[in-house]
């Protein structure tokens, strides 16, 4: 009897694993790399489709000569860094101060739905609150302010990008919070807390010293995703960010969508610069990490107890609840605007309510809605099928490397590779159409669907499948008759996550669709520059409502399908 270390079906498992990862590399890695290449080459003048054959630095020089380009760069960079730092500080402090308390559960319920709100809708929500003629000022005018006319404030598009940072923070806080929640169960929370309390540490300092380093290591990739996203964001920056000059990503988007195709060279140079800005942001963040680690070491060695930490804890709690309050009341403000008749400043509520705007907008919004839904349905369905087959092949074994690869489309700034993909599409002579937009949506949807599904996939009791295999059922039958029904809810949730990601995609739709495929999102963002506020209200609400509908279906589906199965309705 020979010594055996592996049985054949495990060897097969290993082959599946590599095959599965290979597939993932092709699906996610190739387009990203091709896109980046498609960005860099034209930046140096190489773009045969537009007559660029000879390498030149002329376009980079042209970029450098753009008015206020440095300011555009610095504002984008600073806003991204501040957003990430603020969101991380709020989430970290809140988790340190409240994990395991009743408040924690309540805030969790409050914040979770925010993840489904598209960035653009959230940005509009904030804009409608803080604008000079927005809801907040109306509520306190003229009693407190004395204003009888909207003041001449540069809001929400303030030059320091404060409203843009606020808008980004309200959306990144829920994301980081839910990501952190997912890694929290792997920490010895209770024991560490008791130990540190017994040593006389305050909640915050105790958490910071005993658990934070472990926790941060687990959420580091999502944190980088937040950083890259915030530095490169386009739609939120168009709605809330500074203008004249706008941030670099916004300017690139304008160049890239310009009807003059020669502007693509300038856009390429800009996208290359954006890549460098993102590298710089990551570099600065790495330095910040070092500094933070150093400060934590000093704190630890000094034995600082910091027992009086009520204030920062309260602030973090308020900030968490504030994110929810801003978005929900802002959506409320959007709704009021969309049904408002005459609504002169400073009245807090419109004098008359009318469905006129909705009725007038519905014919022109119906086609973008259909396109949005069709894109979102097919992208998330496709992503779900790919995710299921990858997870099925990978099994329960380690998937560390492929797991990190998932973040690739989230770590490379979308403007730098989606723009390159647009260039490639032009070069090949591809007409922008549904399939190409769908393909680029899939690129962004798949990572989220996989991330959403992989945890419940791993957590399913393996004995169900072992039992079924013992009963003589083939792996495929076990998958379809046992695993997928048991994971029905998780699959629907992953589907809804994918759906909402697709709905919220602005730049990829704009660049790859090249104006021929308009979604609610591209229309809403296009309206932000000088559009009728009432119409914007309709578009932003519809955009926010679509993901909510998807999540509603995801939560009601199992209730209906398994109404006679108690254990399936939890």
């Amino acid at each position, binding site marked *: 009897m020979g010594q055996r270390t592996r049985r054949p079906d495990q060897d097969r498992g290993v082959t599946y694993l590599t095959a599965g990862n290979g597939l993932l590399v092709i699906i996610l890695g190739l387009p990203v790399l091709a896109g980046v290449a498609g960005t860099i080459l034209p930046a140096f003048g190489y773009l045969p489709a537009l007559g660029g054959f000879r390498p030149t630095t002329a376009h980079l020089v042209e970029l450098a000569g753009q008015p206020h380009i440095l300011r555009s760069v610095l504002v984008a960079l600073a806003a991204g860094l501040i957003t990430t730092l603020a969101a991380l500080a709020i989430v970290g402090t809140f988790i340190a101060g409240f994990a395991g308390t009743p408040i924690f559960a309540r805030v969790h319920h409050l914040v979770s739905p925010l993840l489904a709100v598209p960035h653009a809708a959230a940005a509009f929500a904030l804009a409608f609150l803080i604008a000079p003629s927005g809801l907040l000022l109306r509520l306190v005018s003229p009693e407190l302010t004395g204003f009888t006319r909207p003041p001449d404030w540069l809001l929400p598009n303030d030059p320091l990008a404060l409203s843009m940072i606020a808008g980004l923070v309200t959306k990144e806080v829920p994301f980081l919070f839910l990501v952190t929640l997912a890694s929290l169960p792997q920490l010895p929370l209770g024991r560490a807390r008791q130990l540190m309390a017994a040593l006389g540490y305050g909640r915050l300092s105790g958490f910071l010293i005993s658990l934070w380093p472990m926790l941060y290591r687990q959420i580091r990739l999502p944190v980088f995703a937040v950083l890259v996203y915030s530095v490169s964001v386009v739609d939120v920056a168009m709605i809330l960010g500074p203008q004249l000059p706008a941030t670099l990503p916004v300017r690139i988007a304008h160049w890239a969508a310009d009807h003059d195709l020669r502007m693509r060279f300038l856009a390429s140079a800009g996208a290359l610069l954006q890549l460098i800005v993102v590298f710089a942001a990551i570099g600065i963040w790495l330095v910040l990490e070092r500094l933070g680690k150093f400060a934590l070491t000093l704190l630890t060695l000094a034995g600082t107890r910091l027992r009086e930490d009520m204030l920062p804890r309260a602030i973090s709690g308020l900030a968490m609840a504030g994110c929810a309050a801003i978005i929900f009341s802002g959506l409320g403000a959007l709704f009021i605007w969309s049904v408002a008749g005459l609504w002169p400043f400073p009245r807090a509520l419109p004098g008359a309510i009318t469905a006129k705007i909705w009725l007038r907008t519905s014919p022109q919004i119906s086609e973008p809605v259909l396109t949005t839904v069709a894109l979102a349905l097919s992208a998330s369905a496709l992503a779900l099928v790919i995710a299921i087959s990858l997870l099925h092949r990978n099994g329960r074994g380690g998937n560390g490397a492929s797991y990190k690869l998932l973040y690739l489309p989230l770590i490379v700034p979308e403007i730098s590779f989606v723009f390159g993909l647009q260039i490639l599409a032009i070069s090949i002579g591809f007409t922008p159409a549904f399939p190409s937009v769908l393909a680029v949506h899939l690129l962004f949807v798949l990572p989220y669907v996989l991330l959403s599904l992989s945890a419940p996939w791993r957590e399913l009791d393996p004995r*169900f499948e*072992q039992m079924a295999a013992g009963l003589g059922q083939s792996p495929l039958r076990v998958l379809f008759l046992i695993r997928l029904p048991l994971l029905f809810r998780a699959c629907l949730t992953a589907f809804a996550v994918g759906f909402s990601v697709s709905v919220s995609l602005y730049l990829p739709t704009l660049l790859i669709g090249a104006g021929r495929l308009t979604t609610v999102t591209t229309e809403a963002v296009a309206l932000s520059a000088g559009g009728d506020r009432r119409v914007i209200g309709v578009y932003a609400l519809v955009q926010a409502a679509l993901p909510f509908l998807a999540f509603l279906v995801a939560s009601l589906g199992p209730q209906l399908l398994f109404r006679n199965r108690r254990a399936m309705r939890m």
Partner: protein
Amino acid sequence: MQAVDDPMPLTLADVVIRLAERTLLSVSATVMPGEVLTVMGPSGSGKSTLLAFAGGFLDPAFRVSGRILIGDRDLTDVAANERHAGILFQDPLLFPHLSVGGNILFAIPQAVKGQKMRRQIAEQALEQIGLAGFFDRDPETLSGGQKARVALQRTLVSAPRYLLLDEPFSKLDAALRQQTRALVFSKAKAAGVPIILVTHDGADAEAAGGRVIEVGSEAEA
């Protein structure tokens, strides 16, 4: 209860289970049809790993040498779903999305054709354990003892070549445990297939009434 073939003895030939460099367990035994081999040991002694090896779903972290045979047929390289190993775990693990009857139907070999025939077998199996008329019930509405009985019948209708019992009584309360134990052993022996039971409960071993192999009695470095 229809068997796949005539019942054949189950042989564990020089089975050694290692985790990293540590030898957890080593067994060599042949179990005759209707006989129970009890493997006793504390948790972490590798006895559940032995069952995973026998069932064909071993965690790759474990290294196992040796072979498992049914009659003359070597099963070591055979996939789990081709082995026809009936398993009972600590939990009944009834599939929560299927009805009680659906759980049994799922287990009846595909070779048994005809909806009517299959349904009849399932109804009969439920009747035998005093659950006639439970076919359409949600498994979640059954009591612990009823679930355990359904799980047993589900395993038996699949016409297993051998049975693997992984502490199947440890989560039942004392009165129910005795009752269920008696039922499982009588029905399992009646099925006339070799049975391997792993447990840490001496009373299980006694009730099984067969050979007992003790493993991992003292911690090894």
